[in-house]
């Protein structure tokens, strides 16, 4: 197949030829504004998240965008994910095997000596629907409203949001404000456990079992509501650089405890005597600041686009976290790109986080041994390769490795836990294939 010499800018040469033919000036022959309307643009993705020995999640995303005559945009997104595998139940590893009751109360599972207790009954399918309508109000004001629905076997989340963006300074600056409200209902199988009550362990077939199990329960379902406020500022610095700053304030009220998590109660020697259901405060106020810079380097640096951001989050549970995220988009030829990604995350523990409690210690009002609110560092490294098939079809592949290192600094370990890995690392692989058309 013959190919027209790539280096040559045919468009420019043709525009000069046209100018000569029509006797028009070059300035009047340089602009064209045309785009397709009334046409859906779709994005599909399949994502696989797999933790070593733990949870595996498969996710399918189908998103459609339609642009209307006056630049109104309708965005619909359907996400379905299926989760299977094992999840840490909060109890600490022991030098001997441990027996736990499943959250439903039906049956038990045994964790071998030295292993972190994992509840392997996790199996859930989640269906998520998001809809967003964006429309310009005036030339420099854009507004957007949206709705959210997410349904799992034991969870329902409903949400609404509204946003307003104002452009000024020749559209080089944008101030935006967003407000969202979510209402979640949790109906876990086996009901809501009573805070600090002991996990019932024994023969689940015995006639008294059901009555005894019911004593550890306080109801069937719980709710929580979340209100988020976001204020953002975007500034174009130059033709090559853009920066963004955000502040968000989020308040959550209601049931914030994880009904599937327990805390090991150890004797002074370090041996587990009991497992009690965790308890968290019924409100949380989270704040975060975010700053981001994108820079488009010139040819001397291969036209790379660098995207670096930093987020600082703090809340009234005593958790604060730092996230540094960076992506570099490196063009490969004319129609493909490679995008390395590095993310660093570091978080401090919640005030009430304890990897275990010793039986003579006072519990305080709240306690949780969930490693996700403990001190940790996590790193994600990976890359994405994208291929532009034509002006609207893109195929991309993403592969990332996630490494999480919980660190329980400041907790002295009783003798029985010596030599046990009570804060095991979590490793995961994230693979994604996306196609937009």
């Amino acid at each position, binding site marked *: 197949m013959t190919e027209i010499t790539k280096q040559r800018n045919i468009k420019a040469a*043709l525009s000069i030829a046209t100018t000569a033919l029509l006797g028009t000036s070059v300035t009047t022959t340089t602009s064209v504004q045309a785009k397709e309307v009334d046409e859906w643009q779709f994005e599909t993705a399949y994502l696989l998240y797999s933790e070593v020995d733990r949870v595996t999640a498969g996710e399918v995303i189908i998103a459609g965008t339609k642009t209307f005559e006056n630049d109104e945009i309708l965005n619909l997104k359907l996400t379905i994910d299926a989760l299977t595998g094992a999840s840490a139940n909060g109890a600490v590893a022991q030098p001997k095997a441990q027996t736990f009751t499943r959250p439903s109360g039906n049956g038990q599972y045994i964790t071998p000596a030295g292993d972190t207790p994992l509840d392997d009954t996790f199996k859930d399918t989640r269906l998520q629907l998001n809809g967003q309508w964006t429309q310009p109000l005036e030339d420099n004001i854009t507004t957007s409203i949206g709705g959210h629905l997410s349904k799992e076997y034991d969870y329902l989340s409903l949400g609404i949001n509204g946003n307003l963006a104002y452009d000024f300074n020749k559209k080089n600056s944008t101030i935006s404000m967003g407000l969202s409200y979510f209402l979640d209902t949790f109906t876990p199988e086996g009901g809501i456990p009573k805070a600090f009550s002991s996990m019932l362990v024994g023969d689940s077939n015995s006639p008294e079992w059901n009555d005894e199990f019911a004593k550890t329960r306080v109801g069937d379902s719980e709710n929580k509501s979340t209100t988020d406020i976001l204020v953002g500022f975007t500034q174009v610095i130059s033709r090559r650089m853009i920066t963004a700053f955000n502040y968000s304030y989020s308040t959550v009220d209601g049931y914030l405890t994880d009904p599937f998590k327990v805390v090991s109660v150890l004797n002074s020697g370090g041996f587990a005597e009991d497992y009690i259901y965790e308890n968290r405060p019924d409100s949380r106020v989270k704040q975060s600041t975010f700053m981001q810079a994108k820079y488009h380097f010139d040819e001397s640096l291969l036209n790379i686009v660098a995207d670096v951001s930093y987020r600082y989050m703090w809340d009234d549970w005593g958790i604060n976290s730092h996230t540094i995220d960076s992506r570099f988009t490196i063009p490969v030829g004319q129609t493909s790109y490679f995008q390395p990604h590095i993310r660093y995350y570091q978080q401090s523990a919640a005030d009430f986080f304890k990897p275990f409690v010793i039986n003579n210690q006072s519990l305080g009002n709240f306690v949780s041994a969930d490693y996700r609110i403990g001190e940790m560092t996590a790193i994600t490294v990976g890359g994405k390769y994208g291929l532009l098939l034509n002006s609207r079809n893109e195929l991309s592949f993403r592969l990332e490795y996630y490494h999480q290192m919980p660190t329980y600094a400041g907790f002295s370990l009783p003798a029985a836990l010596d030599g046990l890995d009570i804060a095991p690392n979590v490793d995961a692989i994230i693979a994604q294939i996306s196609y937009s058309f």
Partner: protein
Amino acid sequence: MQKKRAIKVSKQKDGFAISFYAMASACEVLIQTSDEQLAKQIGQCVSNEVWRIEDKYSRYDFQSTCSLINASNGQPVKIDEETYLLLNFAEQCYQLSEGLFDISSGVLRKLWTFDGENAECKYFPCQEEISEILNFVGWDKVIYDRYSVLLPKNMQLDFGGIGKEYAVDRSILLAKQFTDKPLLINLGGDLAVTGPRENNQAWQVAIEAPYSDKAGHTQDMIVAIKQGALATSGDARRFLIKAGTRYGHILNAKSGWPIVNAPRSITAAAPQCIQAGILATLALLQGENAEKFLIEQEITHWARR
């Protein structure tokens, strides 16, 4: 040849539509005005210009400049400035495409019949026949200057690949001299606008799908255009099938063979219609690399395979 030439003016929601028939296509001028007299005047003036260009460059009209050149039997023919400029433009396209686009390649059509749709090709030329015809193809053999053109014996010129788009651009320039009301000129799918409609609104244009889907519906594509032009190249109804391979009706002027694996149609956007048309045709000439070419040249386009 008796030609039925008339324009039809019809009132629309926020203006007038003037329709007429030219260059084997349905043509339309849309103008956003409440002044019917003005609409009529513009319609008259645009259609006259399109018919003028048709008469001058049609190879079917024996009185046309094109026919005079084609019948010159190797003798120089006097040309006017407009023809000179068009030949110059054709020369640029020939150079830019490294010979793939050639207005002297029309004679190859004697060998190739693209009757499309269903049938397996009845007559498929052999390489000898093609090579023989190729002796009479080649823009580089044409000698021209500001005042005359010399076309070697047995060669033919065909302005079909640029005529309609040229007429769109000429008509836009002409209409702009009469009015600054927003208007759109559409000559059988090749179109241009003078600018956005009132209140910076875009024009909505349906681009006809080159083929129908399984259910028999043609899926028109709607494009919003505020500035510039659109041109479509390719025609799904014109192709031939031989031994399972689909040959599109675009011919490679260098090899004499039809292009294979090209999209069925390409719509390109450009500031002027003639540019859009050439870009769409040059892209089709790239065959399976058509989309790649358009992306590399950063051209807004829609390709349908």
